[in-house]
C-alpha cells in the first residue's frame, strides 16, 4: 500500500533515524546523564525530604523518675528515632535558667541518669554527630506509675507525620512493658528498651498505653494534607523538584540527538540520495522528526518512570497519579518541541559545526536568556505597576517551550504545589499555547526543509 505523497518515505526514514540514534554513543551518554539526574535525584531528594520531614537524627527520650529516697532523677534514653540506642554519649542537663547542672553519659543500652534533687524541671541536650536535640523533664505528680515520651513524625515516609515513636519507663526509670493500642486496636508491645513505633490513620486517634493494669490515653492528630513546610510534603515535592531539573536535561537530550539530523545528511552526501528516492520532502522531514523523537522519548520516559518508581519505593508512597502522568506527558511535549526546533536549525546549518552552535544557542535562549530578558523587560516596563508586572511575568512563559511544558505539568500538581512552577493562566490558554507551538514549529520545519533541504 502506497502512502499519500505527503507522507511518502516517512516510515523508512523514521525507522532508519530511530535505529541509528538508538545505537549512537550520544544517546547512551545522555540517557545515563538523565538517569543520574532523575533516578538519582529522586532517591536523593526523597532521602532529603525524609531527613527534613520531622524526624531528628537522634532523640533524647526524657522521663522523670524518682529515687527510693524521693530524689528527682531525670532518665534520658538516647537513640535514633527508630529505636537503636546510642551508648556512651554525653547528655547535658541545665536548669530553667539554662545554667549547666552537669553531664551524664549513656550506658550500653543508651540510658543516662541524672539526679536533680528536688528540682521540678531540668533541661536536656544531646549532641550526636552534627545533630543537637533538646528537650525538658517536668517532675509533676502523675496519675499513673509510668511515663510516656512520644515523638510524632513521618516514620514510614508517607509524606505526612503519621508515625508515632514512643518510649515508656516505669516510675523508677526502668523500661516498662507496655501494651499499646490505637482507637482500641492493639499495635504491639514495647521492646526491652521500652520503645515502640507504629503508624496512625489520618485524623484524630486515641493512643492508649497500658502498663501493669494502669493505662493512659493520648490524643494524636495526623493532618490530612502536608503541613505546608517545603520539605515535609513528600513524593509530590520530590517529583516537582525532579521535573524542574529533568526539563533542563530533556531539552539538551533532544538537541544533542537531533542537532545534525539534517545537516549530517548533507555533509555525508546522502541527502541527494534520499531526495531522489520515491519520497516527498515532507515525508523525509516527518520521518526525521518521528525517528529522533522516538529515540529521545523512549529512554526519557523509561528514566522518568524509573524516577517515579524510586520515589515511590523510597518514600513508601508514589506521587499523585495525575501529577506523575503530566510529568511524563510534559516531557514528551518538550522533546517534540525541541526536536522540531532543532530540525529547522539543522536544515539551515551548512556544516556540523554550525548545527552544534545553533543547538547550544537555542538551549541558552530558552532556558537562560529568555527568562532573564523577560524579567528585565517586566522590570523596565512595569516598575510602577506591580499588578501589570505580575501579569506580564505570568504571560511571558507562553513564549518559551520549557515554560509551557512546565506550566502544563504543574496544572496537574496537588494544590500546595501550584506556586512551585504553575501559573495563573487558565489551562485552556496554556494548552492552546502548547498546540500553537507544536503546529507552528512543525510548519516551520516543513517549510524550511521544503525550501532549503538540498541547498
Amino acid at each position: 500500500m502506497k502512502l499519500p505523497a505527503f507522507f511518502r518515505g516517512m516510515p523508512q526514514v523514521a525507522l532508519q533515524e530511530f535505529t541509528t540514534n538508538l545505537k549512537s554513543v550520544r544517546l547512551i551518554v545522555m540517557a545515563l546523564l538523565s538517569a543520574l539526574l532523575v533516578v538519582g535525584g529522586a532517591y536523593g531528594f526523597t532521602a532529603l525530604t525524609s531527613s527534613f520531614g520531622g524526624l531528628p537524627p537522634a532523640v533524647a527520650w526524657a522521663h522523670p523518675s524518682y529515687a527510693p529516697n524521693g530524689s528527682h532523677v531525670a532518665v534520658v534514653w538516647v537513640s535514633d528515632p527508630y529505636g537503636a540506642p546510642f551508648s556512651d554519649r554525653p547528655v547535658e542537663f541545665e536548669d530553667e535558667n539554662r545554667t549547666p547542672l552537669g553531664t551524664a553519659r549513656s550506658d550500653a543500652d543508651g540510658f543516662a541518669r541524672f539526679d536533680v534533687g528536688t528540682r521540678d524541671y531540668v533541661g536536656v541536650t544531646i549532641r550526636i554527630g552534627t545533630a543537637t536535640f533538646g528537650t525538658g523533664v517536668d517532675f509533676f505528680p502523675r496519675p499513673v506509675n509510668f511515663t510516656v515520651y512520644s515523638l510524632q513524625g513521618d516514620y514510614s515516609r508517607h509524606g505526612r507525620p503519621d508515625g508515632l515513636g514512643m518510649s515508656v519507663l516505669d516510675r523508677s526509670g526502668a523500661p516498662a512493658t507496655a501494651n499499646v493500642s490505637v482507637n482500641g486496636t492493639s499495635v504491639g508491645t514495647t521492646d526491652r528498651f521500652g520503645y515502640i513505633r507504629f503508624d496512625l490513620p489520618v485524623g484524630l486517634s486515641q493512643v492508649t498505653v497500658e502498663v501493669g493494669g494502669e493505662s493512659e490515653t493520648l490524643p494524636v492528630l495526623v493532618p490530612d494534607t502536608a503541613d505546608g513546610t517545603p520539605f515535609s510534603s513528600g513524593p509530590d515535592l520530590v517529583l516537582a523538584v525532579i521535573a524542574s531539573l529533568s526539563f533542563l536535561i530533556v531539552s539538551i537530550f533532544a538537541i544533542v540527538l537531533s542537532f545534525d539530523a539534517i545537516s549530517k545528511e548533507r555533509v555525508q552526501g546522502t541527502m541527494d540520495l534520499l531526495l531522489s528516492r520515491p519520497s516527498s520532502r515532507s515525508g523525509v522531514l516527518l520521518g526525521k522528526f518521528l525517528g529522533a523523537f522516538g529515540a529521545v522519548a523512549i529512554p526519557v520516559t523509561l528514566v522518568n518512570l524509573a524516577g517515579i518508581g524510586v520515589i515511590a519505593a523510597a518514600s513508601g508512597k508514589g506521587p499523585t497519579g495525575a501529577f506523575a502522568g503530566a510529568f511524563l506527558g510534559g516531557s514528551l511535549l518538550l522533546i517534540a518541541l525541541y526536536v522540531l526546533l532543532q530540525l529547522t536549525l539543522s536544515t539551515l546549518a551548512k556544516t556540523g559545526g554550525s548545527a552544534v552552535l545553533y543547538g547550544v544557542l537555542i538551549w541558552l535562549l530558552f532556558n537562560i536568556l529568555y527568562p532573564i530578558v523577560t524579567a528585565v523587560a517586566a522590570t523596565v516596563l512595569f516598575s510602577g505597576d506591580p499588578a501589570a508586572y505580575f501579569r506580564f511575568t505570568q504571560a511571558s512563559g507562553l513564549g518559551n517551550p520549557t515554560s509551557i511544558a512546565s506550566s502544563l505539568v504543574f496544572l496537574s500538581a496537588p494544590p500546595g504545589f501550584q506556586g512551585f512552577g504553575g501559573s495563573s493562566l487558565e489551562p485552556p490558554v496554556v494548552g492552546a499555547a502548547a498546540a500553537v507551538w507544536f503546529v507552528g514549529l512543525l510548519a516551520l520545519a516543513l517549510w524550511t526543509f521544503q525550501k532549503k533541504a538540498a541547498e
Partner: protein
Amino acid sequence: MAILPASDAQPVHEHGAHPPQSFSRGASSPAAMIEVEGLTKVYGGSRGVRALDNVSFTVPERSVFGFLGPNGAGKTTTIRILATVLDPTAGTVRIGGHDTRREPMEVKERIGLMPDEVLYYPTLTGLQHLVYYASFYGIRRAEAKKRARELLERMGLGDAEGKKVKAYSHGMRKRLSLAQCLFHDPPVMIMDEPASGLDPLGMRSYRDLIRKLANDGKTIFLSSHLLSEVEQLCERVGIIDHGKIVAVDTIANLSSRMYSGAPVVLHVTATGITDVVLEALANIPGVTGVQATPTGVDVTTQPGTDASSDVSRALVLAGAELRGMTKEQRSLEDLFLALTKGGGA
C-alpha cells in the same frame, strides 16, 4: 546504442551567440527519455547566482549521454534537478514523459542517481545501505537482502558487505554508489563522475558495466571529467559552460562541424628534407604552409583538401625518404577546450 541523425541536431554555436539549443526528433528517431527545456536555476533569490541559464537538450532513450563542462559550469546543478533533488527556478524537465515538478514520484521511481562524492552513513554496512534504499521501492526485506548480496558480489564488495562503510576506501564507496544506483533496476541512470577515483581494474569493470547497461536498454546520463571515458562510452554529448549549453551532438558531428572550416595539417616523418623538398611541397596546389620539424615536415593545406598523395609524390621526387604520414586528429578534448574557451575540466 541509438543516436539521433546528424540532420536532426542543431549546429554547434558560439557560446552565448545563439538562442538556446533544442531539437526535434525525426519520425524514425527513438523517443526522448530525458527532455530538458528552458531550464534555469538561480541560487539565492532573483539577484543571486545564475547557475543554469535557459538550458535545453534531450537524451534519447537507450542511449549513453555524456555531459561535459568545466568546474562550476552547472553540471551538478543539472544532475540534481534531473534527479528531483533540486527544483528549477524556471523551465521544465521530463523523464520518461513525466514532469519532475508535477509528477516527482513517477520520476523518482524511474531513476537511479549516482552522486559524485558520498560518504554514506558511517555506522551502516554496505548491505544495510542497499536494504535501506530498497525499502523506498517497496522491495521486501528478504528479497532486498538477497539482491543486495548478489549486487555487492558483482561489484567486488562481497567480502565487505558486513563491514561498516566508514572502513570503506574511496573506490569501495564508489562501487557501493554504483550498486545503489542499479539496485532497483531503473530505466534511467544519472551518474555524476562515476569513474573518478577508480583503479585501472575498477575502471575497466565500470566501462564494461556501462556498455552492458546500454545494451540492456538503459538510458544513461553521464557527467564526467574523464574525457577519454566519455569518448569511449558516449556517442552523444552535451557541453555546458557558464550555465549555458554550448553544444549537443554526436562527437563525430561536433568534430566535423567544429573543424569544417579549419586547415588540415599533415605530420610527415621523413629524412632528407632539404630546401628543394620544402619548395616542392610549398608548390603543391592547396598547400598553405610548410614547416620543417626534427622528424620531418608539417604540411598545412586548405580546409577540405586531401593533399596526402600529392605530398607523398613530391617528397619522393625531390629526393626525400618518406617514412610515415598522419593527418591531425581532433579529439573530444580539443572540442571541449575549443567550445569552453579553455575548459578547466
